[in-house]
Every structure is written in structure tokens, then in C-alpha cells.
């Protein structure tokens, strides 16, 4: 195994720095508080993992929220039964969501294209409904699964540790509230990014790209594509489980709404918005969507009235009536609109936009490449 290439190393270091310094550079955007930053980390992990399946392999899953939800439930159960420590909870969540992804993936991957997407969607909706019905002993139904004082916590009990007051997850006895929680999640995002980078640059990653590009040729080239797609599916399911578990660490309450199809759709949007198949794109997509969700859903009618206050009353009311449909609860409408614009005008997402702009700069400089020399096309994964 050779060390990473220079470009990979630079990308990784740059990415890590950007993540760790987020509490600073997010300040001008008014987003430098731990609660929101944690969500940035968690959904970026979700999107990076989703991209391994969708971006590299080309299989569009509409049910990844199921693995996210399973990760949350598994983590909360670990807090209840084993220990309030975050590490066993994360390990347990990754294992459980991995097994879950193996089962769902095995069946869903018998089909490809739209049928695969529908199958994953169906499985996720089934999980969602089961969580509310038959599985209430495990999920605690609509109330959601939460921690109580009377939880067994066998590991903690064995070492004679007991918590006072409302139990909260910890790391080796240290609280994970506030910025500690952020840095905890940031560490996992950096690790998740590193692994995704390695996978993308590995022969295995190249096979996934081959499958996306031409599955028929892969078969006639001697590859059994099924285990490749299944491995990609399970890996991305484990990423989702890790993200779900981290959400449970920051807020130890798991509810079934995390498995709903809108949550599955959201990670698809994040990935496409940022640029499917690129390493950084899904992260940017996740951050943008979570950032604007935070802003838009906080806006209500009175905020809008103040905003349009300078207009004559009747006109202002009209503006408020229209724009209020796009904020608060109506945030999804805005999201949908942005998505349509991206897919129509910039199908490669924000990363394609960045490349196009970089391309303009390169062209305006005097050309150093000799005429006739092939221009290097942008590679999907960078």
C-alpha cells in the first residue's frame, strides 16, 4: 500500500481543516453554534456514504433513511441496555444497519434502474410503518425511543457507574454537549471522508465506476457485479447508520419520522445538489440544505410582514401570502424548486459549476497545451 498521492493528501488536509475550523468561518453566516454544526457533520456523513452507492455505482436508492433510522434506534438501545458511552453505541449501530442493508440490498439489487429505486422505497416505507405498528416494543411507536433513569445499562452497572439526573450520552465519562459534541461528530466526518476517498481511489472503486458506466461490459469482462453492488450498498448503509447513531448521541431520542421517504429524498437532493460522484459535492450539498433549512424554517408570517413592511399594506399582504408558502413548513417547496433548477441547468451539481468556472479561467489564460493534444476531461470523482 502506497501513501496517498499528493493531490489526495492536499484534498484531505484541506477538507479536514475546513471542517475543524467551521466554528470560526461559519460565524459570519450566523451558523456557528454547536447544534447546527453537529447536524452539518451528521448529514454530510450520510451524504458521503450515499454517494458511494449512487455517485460511484449509479444505483439510486430512495430508502436510505431506513438505515439512518435503524442506526438511531440501535444507538439508543445501546445507551439503554449497555452503556451511556457513545463508542459502543456507534459500533452497535453500524453493525445493525449493515446487516439491515445486507438484507434489503440483497433483494433490491435483483433489479436495477427504476425498479431498484422503487424496491428500496418500498422497503423503507415498510420499515417506517412497522416502526409505528408491530415493532412498537422496539421503537416505542409515536412517542419515540428515549432514555430513562430505570434503563438497565449493563456495562455501566458492571463497572459501578451510575448517572445522576436525566441520562445523557458521554465519551469515556466526558460530556458530549456543546462543542465537544461537534468535534466528536467532526472527527467521524473526517474519518468517513478519508474512507470514502480511499474507496474512490481503489480498484474496488474503479469497478463501481465501471458498473455505473457499463454493467454489461463489466459482466463480459469477467466481473461478478452483484457482490460489488451489494458491498457498495452495505457500505453506504453503514455510513447512514453511523450518521443516525451520531444524531442519537447529540439528542438521544429516536423516532420513526427519520425513516420517512422525505428523509430518504433529502439525502438524494444533497448528493445531486452538490454533485453526485464527486467527493466534496455531497458534503457541500448537505451543508447548504441544512443551512437553508435552518434559516427558511425559522421564518414565519410576522418576519415576512416586517420584511415587506416598506410596501403599501395591500401589496405587502400579497407578497407575504405568496412567500409564506415557501418558508417555515413550506421549506420543502423551496427545496423542490432549487432542485428542479439544479437538475435542469446544472445536472452535475455545484461541483460542475465550480469546474465550469475553473474552465473559463483556464481558457482565458494563454494556452500552454499544444494544439492537438487531448484535453483532459473532468473525471467524475475528484
Amino acid at each position: 500500500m502506497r501513501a496517498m498521492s499528493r493531490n489526495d493528501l492536499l484534498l484531505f488536509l484541506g477538507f479536514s481543516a475546513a471542517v475543524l475550523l467551521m466554528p470560526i468561518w461559519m460565524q459570519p453566516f450566523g451558523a456557528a453554534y454547536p447544534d447546527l454544526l453537529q447536524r452539518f457533520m451528521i448529514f454530510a456523513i450520510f451524504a458521503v456514504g450515499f454517494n458511494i452507492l449512487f455517485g460511484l455505482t449509479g444505483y439510486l436508492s430512495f430508502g436510505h433513511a431506513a438505515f439512518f433510522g435503524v442506526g438511531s434506534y440501535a444507538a439508543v438501545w445501546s445507551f439503554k441496555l449497555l452503556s451511556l458511552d457513545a463508542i459502543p453505541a456507534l459500533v452497535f449501530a453500524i453493525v445493525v444497519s449493515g446487516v439491515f442493508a445486507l438484507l434489503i440490498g440483497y433483494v433490491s439489487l435483483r433489479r436495477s434502474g427504476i425498479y431498484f429505486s422503487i424496491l428500496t422505497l418500498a422497503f423503507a416505507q415498510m420499515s417506517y410503518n412497522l416502526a409505528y405498528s408491530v415493532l412498537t416494543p422496539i421503537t416505542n411507536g409515536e412517542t419515540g425511543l428515549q432514555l430513562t433513569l430505570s434503563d438497565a445499562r449493563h456495562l455501566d452497572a458492571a463497572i459501578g457507574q451510575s448517572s445522576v439526573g436525566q441520562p445523557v450520552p458521554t465519551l469515556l465519562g466526558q460530556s458530549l454537549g456543546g462543542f465537544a459534541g461537534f468535534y466528536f461528530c467532526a472527527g467521524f466526518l473526517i474519518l468517513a471522508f478519508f474512507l470514502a476517498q480511499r474507496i474512490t481511489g481503489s480498484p474496488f472503486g474503479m469497478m463501481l465506476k465501471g458498473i455505473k458506466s457499463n454493467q454489461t461490459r463489466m459482466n463480459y469482462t469477467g466481473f461478478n457485479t452483484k457482490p460489488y453492488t451489494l458491498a457498495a450498498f452495505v457500505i453506504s448503509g453503514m455510513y447512514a447508520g453511523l450518521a443516525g447513531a451520531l444524531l442519537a448521541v447529540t439528542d438521544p431520542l429516536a423516532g420513526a419520522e427519520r425513516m420517512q421517504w422525505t428523509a430518504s429524498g433529502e439525502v438524494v437532493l444533497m448528493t445531486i445538489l452538490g454533485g453526485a460522484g464527486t467527493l466534496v459535492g455531497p458534503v457541500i450539498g448537505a451543508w447548504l440544505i441544512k443551512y437553508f433549512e435552518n434559516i427558511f424554517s425559522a421564518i414565519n408570517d410576522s418576519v415576512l410582514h416586517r420584511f415587506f413592511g416598506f410596501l403599501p399594506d395591500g401589496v405587502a399582504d400579497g407578497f407575504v401570502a405568496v412567500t409564506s408558502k415557501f418558508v417555515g413548513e413550506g421549506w420543502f417547496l423551496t427545496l423542490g424548486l432549487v432542485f428542479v433548477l439544479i437538475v435542469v441547468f446544472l445536472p452535475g451539481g455545484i461541483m460542475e459549476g465550480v469546474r465550469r468556472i475553473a474552465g473559463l479561467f483556464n481558457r482565458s489564460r494563454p494556452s500552454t497545451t499544444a494544439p492537438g493534444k487531448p484535453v483532459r476531461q473532468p473525471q467524475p470523482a475528484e
Partner: protein
Amino acid sequence: MTTPNVVLHVADVHKRFGGLHALADIDLQVEEGQTHAIIGPNGAGKSTLLNVIIGKLPPSSGQVVFDGAVLTGRKPYQINQLGIARVFQTPEIFADLSVLHNVMIPALAKRDGAFKLNLMRSLDSETAIRAEAEHMLEDVGMHSRREMTAGSLSRGDKRRMELAMCLIQHPRLLLLDEPTAGMSRHDTNTTIELLKKIKARGMTKVIIEHDMHVVFSLADKISVLAQGRIIADGTPDQVRGNPKVQEAYLGGAHA
């Protein structure tokens, strides 16, 4: 003289598409190291025959045997792993990947088998595979285009690259479906030279070709297919002289 060693035996194969009898009672034996050409008019069933051999289509009856192993019923990837590679009539390539990666992927299939979970290895560290791929691209005269995206190549270049993708696996049997279609005269001649070179290395080939210049400069044996049946086979000279062939296909003009 040693008895010829038959590596590929297509035995009594029929293929029906609904009412269409695309292959009827095909019996074909290909000997080790030989170049066996299949010629015939459009729609004769030539590509269908290759599809049956590589497991893309199941025969309606009959079977295909390769070096003692029955291919019929096996999956395409298993058939490839036994040592059979194919150049398609419409190039099957990885259009979004670079030319170099297109050629490296089959080399990895050859080395690592049908599945390998090498997640943490770096593709950049596969220097041997890369060197092999670059060498192969030099052989087909495409080294200068190695960084291009395969989808942006001309039709003839796609075909040459696909040939490189097959050759890098050192298959024991190479199936070529019109490998020079869409190529300029010059590229056609380069390809013929290349195919002669690999013939010298003992690779067995089945080649479908409309270009009689290519056929007669390469083939040891020719089978003529018309309306799903083999109407003649033999050495190039025998086939050239066969009046049935003259009538069905060559029409005198090509020969």
C-alpha cells in the same frame, strides 16, 4: 501430423426468436490457434451465434463446449473467466472513463478474478497493471489518447480500444464481431497486422467480418452463414470456389 485440437465446439445449436429461426442446426468446430471467420449477409445470425457462445442468449437447444467445459447455462462473467473475450459489433466500452482505465479494468478482472474487496488499496499503486495497459495501448496505436474520455473517441478508435480491452486479458479464445467496421483503410490494415501478430502467439479467434480483404488475409477456416444455417465451410480457397457461396453472399463482386 497431430490430430487437430478442437477448443470450441458449438453442437447442434438452434436459436428461435418467436417465429424466427435465427440459428438452425449450427455445428461449428474451432481448432486451437486458428482464425475462424464467419461470413454471411446481414441478418444471417452471426452476432446471435456469438451471443449464444458468450452466454448473452441461451440457445433454444444444443450446447456450446469450450475446452471440455460446457458453457451453456453459465453466466457471462464465468465464461469470460474461462478465457473468452469478445469485441462487440457496437462497441461496449466504459464511455465515462478514461481510455487508460478502460483497459486497466479488464486487466484487473484477469488478475483478481470475478470479485475482490480491495477497498484500501490505491489504484495509483497498481503500477504493473498500468504499465501493461499502456503497453497494450501502444500495440493498438492509441497510447497518445490514453487520458481521453472513451466516449469522445471516434468509432474506429472505440473499436481499437475495445480490442485492447480484450487482448490485455490474453484470452484463449477471442471473438470479434466486425472489428474493423468504421475504421479507415489505414487503421484497418494496422488492425490486420495486429491480429496477425497475436495469431502468431497462438490465440484462437472467431471473427465476423464483411470486409473480404480482412477475411482472406486472416482466416484459416471460413464458415458461411445464411438465414441461420451454415451453407458452406472450409479453407478460404474452398469457400471462394463454392458456387453456393457465390450465389448467397459473395455475388462474384467481392471475390
